[in-house]
């Protein structure tokens, strides 16, 4: 890839209700990360430890929405990023956290903090510092407009690389056989 004439694109990433597995997979692009860094610079991301997202070209979201904080962060990304990408199963369809959706939230909280065997004087944490859980876990496209999706649990480094380089080259991203995976 040639050196860009244009200024570097700004990219932000975050993990909401996810396991950081998609971020780990992102790192699986290995030495291509160095090539990527020639083209982009990172804003808010676990890679930079920047806490808030400024105006960016691309925002990458791992994980779905399970609590109020997830909603705040997602909105911050949508407001600041020209292109928003849902990365991985949880962002796209709720994934593993959404497996709680067939249970009622009060039932879950009751089970986890009161009823479970071995709890003494259990109470449901009510510290204002803690984000409140939503009654259901939602994929991010149900709450904000999402521009691109990279499925997989996690998507492979190659799939992430393909989408990013397609976008950087101004092409419509396309994953062919072998790169598109839901598992």
């Amino acid at each position, binding site marked *: 890839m040639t050196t860009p004439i244009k200024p570097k694109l700004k990219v932000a990433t975050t993990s909401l209700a996810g396991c950081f597995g998609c971020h780990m997979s992102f790192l699986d692009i290995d030495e291509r990360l160095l090539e990527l860094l020639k083209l982009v610079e990172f804003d808010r991301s676990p890679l930079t430890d920047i806490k808030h997202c400024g105006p960016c070209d691309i925002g990458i979201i791992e994980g779905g929405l399970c609590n*109020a904080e997830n*909603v*705040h962060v997602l*909105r911050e990304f949508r*407001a600041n990023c020209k292109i928003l990408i849902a990365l991985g199963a949880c962002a796209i369809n709720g994934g593993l956290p959404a497996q709680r959706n067939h249970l*009622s*939230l*009060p039932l879950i*909280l*009751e089970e986890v903090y009161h009823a479970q065997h071995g709890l003494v004087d259990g109470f*449901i*944490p*009510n510290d*204002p*510092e803690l*984000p*409140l*859980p*939503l*009654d*259901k876990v*939602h994929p991010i496209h*149900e*709450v*904000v*407009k999402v521009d691109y999706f990279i499925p997989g649990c996690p998507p492979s480094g190659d799939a992430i690389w393909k989408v990013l380089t397609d976008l950087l080259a101004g092409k419509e991203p396309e994953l062919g056989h072998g790169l598109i995976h839901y598992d």
Partner: protein
Amino acid sequence: MITQVNTHSEYLDPILLHRRHNANDLLQVLREAQEHYGYIHSDAIDYLSEKLNLPRSKIEGVAGFYSFLYLQPRGEYRVLFSDNITDRMLGNMDLMASMCAQLWVESGKLSEDGLLSINTTSCTGMCDQGPAMLVNNIAINRLSNERVSAICELIRERVPVSAWPAEFFAIEDNVRRKDILLGSSFKSGSALAVLQQRGADEILNEVKVSKLRGRGGAGFSTGSKWDFCRVAPGEQHYVVCNADEGEPGTFKDRVLLNSYADMVFEGMTLCARVIGAKKGFLYLRGEYRYLLDHLQAVLQRRRQQALLGKNILGIADFDFDIEIHLGAGAYICGEESALIESLEGKRGTPRNRPPFPVTSGYLNQPTVVNNVETFAATSLIGLNGGSWYAGIGTETSSGSKILSVSGDCDRPGLYEYPFGVTVAQVLADCGARDTQAVQVSGPSGVCIAANEFTRRIAFEDIPTAGAFMVFDQNRDMFEVARNFVHFFAHESCGFCTPCRVGTSLLSNMMDKLAQGFGSPYDFAEIEKLNVLLQSTSHCGLGHSACNSVLDTIAKFRPAYEKRLAHKDFVPAFDLDSALSQARQMTGRDDKGAHLEREDESR
């Protein structure tokens, strides 16, 4: 266990005997069995499975398909409020809420004491005298606060429905304009006498000459249908009268069967002679259960008059009889191949076509399926001749059409006109003022705006099965379309992907707009869904499920635009409400325990 089964045998054996242990009558057996407990007991299914030699899974599959069959207790009193848009306009939702409050029951759920349940149901065909309800499948109309309170009292006192005041069950015909059909002084047997004199070939010829087209809405030539069926090879031929009048806003068949049943049965008998059928069915929608005894009596009288049964009118070899099958709350069974499936005791899923019923219908034998009004018209044609009939109406739409008029007008009821009448004429006759729109032919039909009132009721302009719902300037046409979309989602048979999922998605999207979460994004989504449903659905239900939305978007766009409250996409649910359970569980109400709407936070 044994005693349980014996208990069920007591009421099931007579039913099974009457139905000759015929597995094709499964739906009828289940419907009759349910009348015992108000639901179908799990042990009863075992008993039926053994006696009918049917797998349990099949019986549960059939029972699960029909809205009026219950596999769980629904109470001694099962109240269903008709929920057509015309019932809504007459305040059915307030009445239902009031009834739920008076009887301490949540709609859709069984009361804690197991006494009753209250729910909504699709249009019960009483739009001219709504708001309407069914109690234990029997119709009660003209609901008011007083009547609802009286019903609550009767339920509280546990008075059996059979002992409720007779005036509750009074149903008016409301015939407002008579023409050749409703105005005829038809004498039972008179058309058959012509048949006796002139023979089946000539009767078929008269039906062809009359250019009569099917009154169910599709408008297929009746003469051709009878002819195709007549020449189709088969061991038996069958005549089926489609009285599954489920299209919301239609109620003409109710009146025809109440006051003109002889014309209908006589038309079926003419058809039987033409196609060589020994057996016919009247498939009567479950909502018209109250007509059953009356219709059985008419059939019985006709047998005594030698107009049905063996050697009709003494003609050797002219044997024909009619059996009544009741539906059980499934609009899709108005589709002829789904109706046939239902007659065969199956789930009412439309068949793949071809083959069509004329060659492969009931039990895969050649079958004519015609509408109630069509059969009644053939009696007139038999009596008065085809050219007489063809001279009435327009060139391509001969004869008359009965319209079921309801909604915003002074005189709702039946209006029969020669084909070609303008919408404006009907509106003038029924006393409609400040009319904004007319929904012709029900939710699957067309929505006509004021600038189109010069259009005509005829196959070449506005074809219709007869529903004519009037909306004045005060009505919200978005809410009309939303009611129709909910109707289709409830009535989708679930067979094909686009209709099963698409009607639910469409109804969710319309709800999203109604709740104030709409944006141009949703508008585009609705339009995309419309295309998909029309192009890929299995049958007419899916094809037409979007009609009302498409029409109202095209003709009443402001009703939609005011719902597009947001410039950009917003979620279909309120995020702050999505935290309410957690707030309740933690007792928190601080700022962090809330989520603002996004456009407020910006």
